[in-house]
């Protein structure tokens, strides 16, 4: 890595909270063993966070994305511009708009096809709305992946900064919990515990952040993404993770130095077992405290990014959020210890990020 990558801002909106790194820290610190879990973001509350035109024009996932991105940039004190990039991870995109567009045709024929809804049927619609809202004019990418889209977006953006291609990137994920979407997933046997929301991180090179006196919340010390062998939508047998090894290598960190873990456990039992096997084989899972936060806000692409934000908090707070049902074991580890954020999807896409404390 040519450049060190720091997190300088976070913004999130999900059924449990809306806010920046301070709000997230307070929420994480106060999480009890069985957190109350609202299923959906309140639409009226969401509308109040946007101006009237945006609230009228934007679809729900676009609204979530814009609200979260603005919170992250405000947290970082960073404006938009030609050098600000955006990487959005999403699993489902704006599927509700696609369904509404189809319903227009099925109800009224060709005259029922809405030209306003059509752009939302393309999965980059959240990125489009967000770049316009915040004025991000450098690279903008939407990454689609099951389960790990948020982690993948953060890892991708961190890689671009580490290589020196970008100075600052908004990276995160967004997904909506939709009834028909849930029905389609259940037809396919999906057993994950789903939720909705959006979370973005502002990632910067350490030089860029320092030059503008930004406050780093944590450092992404290593990232890697690979694929494990599996059938499409299937769970594989292989557990040897080159992603974990590569991320640890970049971070110059031995598996034994990893003090804690945020995994992508989501209630899909076969997938969760596979991930545990991968982490055990990498020398990570056994004896490490670990959480996934899925119980708190439900699985969605924004949660992947929220895990990275929570990991930065853990490096500062020296502990994981209270969620003992999901813990693998262990106690508080003290501030400053590095940890791993890990994601593994059915089909084999696989992401690892080593997160450490802010540079001194």
């Amino acid at each position, binding site marked *: 890595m040519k450049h060190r990558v720091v997190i300088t801002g976070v913004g999130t909106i999900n059924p449990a909270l809306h806010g920046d790194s301070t709000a997230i820290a307070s929420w994480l610190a106060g999480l009890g063993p069985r957190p109350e879990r609202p299923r959906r973001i309140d639409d009226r509350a969401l509308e109040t966070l946007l101006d009237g035109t945006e609230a009228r024009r934007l679809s729900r996932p676009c609204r979530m994305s814009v609200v979260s991105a603005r919170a992250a940039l405000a947290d970082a004190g960073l404006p938009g511009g030609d050098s600000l990039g*955006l990487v959005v991870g999403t699993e489902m995109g704006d599927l509700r708009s696609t369904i509404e567009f189809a319903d227009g045709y099925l109800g009224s024929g060709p005259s029922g096809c809405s030209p306003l809804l059509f752009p939302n049927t393309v999965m*980059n619609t959240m990125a489009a709305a967000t*770049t316009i809202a915040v004025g991000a004019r450098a*690279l903008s990418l939407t990454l689609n992946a099951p389960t790990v889209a948020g982690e993948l977006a953060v890892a991708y953006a961190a890689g671009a900064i580490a290589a020196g291609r970008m100075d600052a990137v908004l990276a995160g994920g967004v997904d909506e919990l939709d009834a028909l979407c849930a029905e389609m997933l259940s037809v396919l046997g999906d057993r994950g515990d789903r939720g909705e929301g959006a979370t973005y991180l502002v990632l910067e090179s350490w030089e860029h952040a320092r030059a503008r006196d930004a406050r780093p919340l944590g450092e992404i010390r290593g990232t890697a993404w690979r694929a494990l062998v599996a059938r499409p939508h299937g769970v594989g047998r292989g557990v040897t993770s080159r992603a974990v090894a590569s991320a640890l290598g970049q971070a110059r960190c031995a598996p034994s130095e990893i003090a804690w873990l945020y995994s992508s456990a989501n209630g899909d039992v076969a997938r969760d077992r596979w991930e545990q096997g991968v982490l055990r084989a990498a020398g990570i899972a056994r004896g490490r405290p670990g959480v996934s936060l899925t119980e708190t806000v439900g699985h969605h692409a924004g949660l992947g990014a929220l895990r990275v934000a929570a990991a930065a908090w853990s490096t500062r707070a020296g502990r994981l959020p209270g969620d003992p049902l999901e813990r693998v074991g262990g106690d508080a580890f003290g501030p400053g210890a590095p940890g791993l954020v890990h994601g593994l999807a059915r089909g084999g896409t696989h992401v690892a990020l080593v997160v450490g404390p802010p540079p001194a």
Partner: protein
Amino acid sequence: MRRIVVSGLGAVSPFGAGVKTYWDGLDAGACAIRPVTLIDTAGFRCRLAAEVPGPLAGSARRSRADRLALGAAREALDDAGLAAAERRDAALVVGAVGGGMLEAEGWYWARRRGGPMPVAGTLRPILPSAHAEMLGHRLHLEGPRATIVTACSSGAAAVAAAAELIADGVVSVALAGGADALTRICYMGFNALKLLDPAPCRPFDRERKGMSIGEGAGFLVLEEASHAVARGARIYAELAGAGSTTDAFHVTAPHPDGDGMARAMRAALAAAGVTPSEIGYVNAHGTATPQNDRIEARALAAVFGEGRPLVSATKSMIGHTMAAAGALEAIATVLALVRERVPPTAHLVTPDPDVPFDCVAGTARDVVVDHAMSNSFGFGGQNVTLLFRRT
């Protein structure tokens, strides 16, 4: 700085399967835009599209888009002659938009209309990421895997992202490209936006009335240059630079000054260390909508000045193949360097005076070009330029 070369090509286009078939069609200036057969077009203004002719290779249990993707990806890997171990470590970056939507639409149409329901498995490949999962499994690729959705520039964005993985030293080899099948949503949506020409599209013509949609898949094997040389690979061209920008202006319309497009082209020139005067050919995004062609010409003029380089639009022959377009057009650009022949713009009869370039009307032209660009732009103001160098 690691140099990146193209060592394998694969295409399934509206001309049929295979790179040779694709190039022969382009070289002849043939038109593959015909009446739609895959979906019901009753009541729509435009009833044409560029469909891939059947029968398609591969299992009928796969989505149509998966079958297009597999055909092109397999051809590219075979063309590159990679050993099994090299394949295993290769990155896979796929540009996708529609995923398995054509089959999912069938499920949803039946659910709404109360007809016999297709088996639930038809929903499984609905998401764009399904192509990468299928390709990774079938082709035994275990390197970094990503699915990129940047609307109509997805295929080019995938190529650019794969090149970055090689430049950063993450991998030595990458398979990158894009795939899309015709879908009802796409066909109806562009009809609703009134962006489709009822006749085959006419990029850069004064009388142009809009685009034609299409389908297909294109994949390129990218490789670190010394790795390719060491294994004696055939090298088609060097991917010398890429530029990606965002307009941040409008969800569907490009910035009226072509600002984002020009920034993408300049970024690609800077990455390649090439001056505008060294570019001999630009494979334009060239959709044939009145607005896109005028603004792209404005951006080209801002970067190159009026009059040069040569500009042509592959979409005049194979339509707009959506996520595949950027990859198929990258292949056309590479082959223009290799064959020393620039593919034409079909149906260009009356050049638009707002497009101050030689757009190679009607017939391919023999020209030796050392550097060529491929432009791809998408909804959301997503601009990607790829710059290839002759080797």
